[in-house]
């Protein structure tokens, strides 16, 4: 069975969803949206899913639309939260896992989705952070992802602007800032997976067609490499089928460059 990088990537994201946990994704997050439903339909049937911009609890959508504030995403939901309920639950510390991406991500897992070149004079103004600026402080685990791990791009020495909190800002560590959540635990890119054992990114796994040197060339900071550096575990046939079932429109693919969509693997 052949499968493509986007399917592989989403399955690895899905592994971040624990069973019997509360998990949340924001808007503009196709890969995370698909991953949450793949997890719920496989290894995490008891997970409590909170759907991005619909605030729908445990929906079972027939497909994922390319915009997240759409009723298609609340099909089959047992309950629809109010906006207030979802945010209160997040900042109170009742959400175990949240998926978060960034146009820039630094070694501490801080993310910038506000502006390349910083504010108030941005070189490129991006959309903005939604609710991440508060809930990145309190959610127990942040699962970061990017599909733009290329030289001079996402993984930078220093974010031009910190929208969402990682493990440490220039003002101090999470503990010093008084933030209760544990911060980013993993960062999944189209090249591999980092963890944050001491609050700093460490290369933990590679996709099988990627060399360590490629990761080094594509990363704007030096990083340690785990002594047991491994390969991202291949998805099962069932997981691949689930990705296709959850996302028949292929919205996950919108996050990838055409060249990466050509990367293909065999099971």
């Amino acid at each position, binding site marked *: 069975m052949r499968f493509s990088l986007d399917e592989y990537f989403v399955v690895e994201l899905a592994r971040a969803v624990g069973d019997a946990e509360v998990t949340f994704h924001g808007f503009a997050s196709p890969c995370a949206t698909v991953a949450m439903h793949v997890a719920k339909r496989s290894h995490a049937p008891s997970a409590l899913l909170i759907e991005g*911009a619909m605030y729908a609890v445990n929906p079972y959508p*027939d497909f994922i639309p390319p915009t997240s504030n759409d009723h298609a995403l609340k099909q089959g939901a047992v309950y*629809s939260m109010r*906006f207030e309920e979802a945010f209160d639950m997040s900042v109170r510390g009742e959400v175990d896992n949240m998926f978060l991406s960034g146009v820039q991500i630094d070694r501490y897992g801080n993310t*910038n989705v506000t502006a390349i070149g910083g504010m108030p004079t941005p070189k490129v103004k991006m959309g903005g952070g939604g609710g991440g600026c508060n*809930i990145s402080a309190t959610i127990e685990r942040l699962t970061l992802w990017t599909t733009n791990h290329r030289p001079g791009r996402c993984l930078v020495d220093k974010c031009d602007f910190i929208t969402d909190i990682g493990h440490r800002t*220039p003002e101090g560590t999470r503990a010093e800032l008084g933030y209760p959540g544990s911060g980013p635990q993993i960062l999944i890119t189209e090249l591999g997976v980092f963890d944050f054992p001491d609050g700093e990114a460490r290369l933990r796994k590679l996709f099988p067609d990627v060399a360590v040197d490629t990761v080094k060339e594509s990363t704007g900071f030096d990083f340690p490499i785990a002594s047991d550096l491994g390969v991202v575990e291949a998805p099962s046939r069932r997981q691949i089928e689930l990705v296709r079932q959850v996302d028949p*429109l292929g919205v996950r693919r919108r996050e990838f460059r055409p060249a990466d969509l050509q990367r293909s693997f065999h099971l």
Partner: protein
Amino acid sequence: MGVHLGADKQTDLETAAGLVQPGSMVALGGGLSARLPMALVRQLIRDGIGDLHVVGSAHSIDVDLLVAAGSISVCEESYVGYEQDHGLAPAFRRAAQEGSIEVRESCCDTVLTQLRAAEMGLPFLPVHGVKGTGIESLHPEYRRVTCPFTGQIFVAVPPLAPDVALIHAPLGDRSGNLHLEQPYVLDERFATASAMVIATVDRIASTDEVQAAGIVIPFYRVAAIAEVPFGAHPSSCYPGYAYDRNHIGEWVESAATPSGAEDYLSRYVTGTDEAGYRSLLGAQRLERLGSYTESTAAWMEMFT
């Protein structure tokens, strides 16, 4: 925070939009691609209104059109864009980069907290995060406070009391009772925290019918209500219609250049009224947006 009595507040779109003063702080209802107050946005542009300070959570074409028309001076939304659907908001991005608008980017939860402070009549409330982020630096009005009980330092935010909230709903009555489908996003909070709500609805119905559907925003928050079919177009207003993905695509493509944005505005906004807007789109196209209920395949078709 305004109470608006009166049994009949139904008026036309032009009169309703005319209640918004230049320089106002305006809360935009709905969010992203859903239930945006687009007819009101278009009317404000026709009126040539300027110097608005818009506040809200995650928005898209509503803010983008207002920016393109030069109506906004301060943007205090948490996000403006089209997700991975159509990407960055071209007019908003251009104006932010040129410095022709001030982007006071906020966070959904901060906006919520500030609205709650206004609703509760409190001078401030603390938020959990923000401290140490770039967002804090964009808001000189925020302060740091020490919790008198634990000694912990929080960012304190002042109340946010918009002059007006623009809200579109599928159903309402003449007195201003509004029924919305979830998610309500911040609309309930906007309704209480703002001095007045100006509403458009796809259809005016009897109070009995709105009550049966469920009143989400009560009449006494609403200063004026106008019936504008497809008043949220090109965003969705379920259960009536899904969003018009191709039309949003047409805007994003046009707005890639300032002259393209102007062409769009003169064709769809300033050169016509709402009836003309619907004619330009065509009955068939608008009807199709309601056909999502026919089958999953029909619904998926909306997104291709």
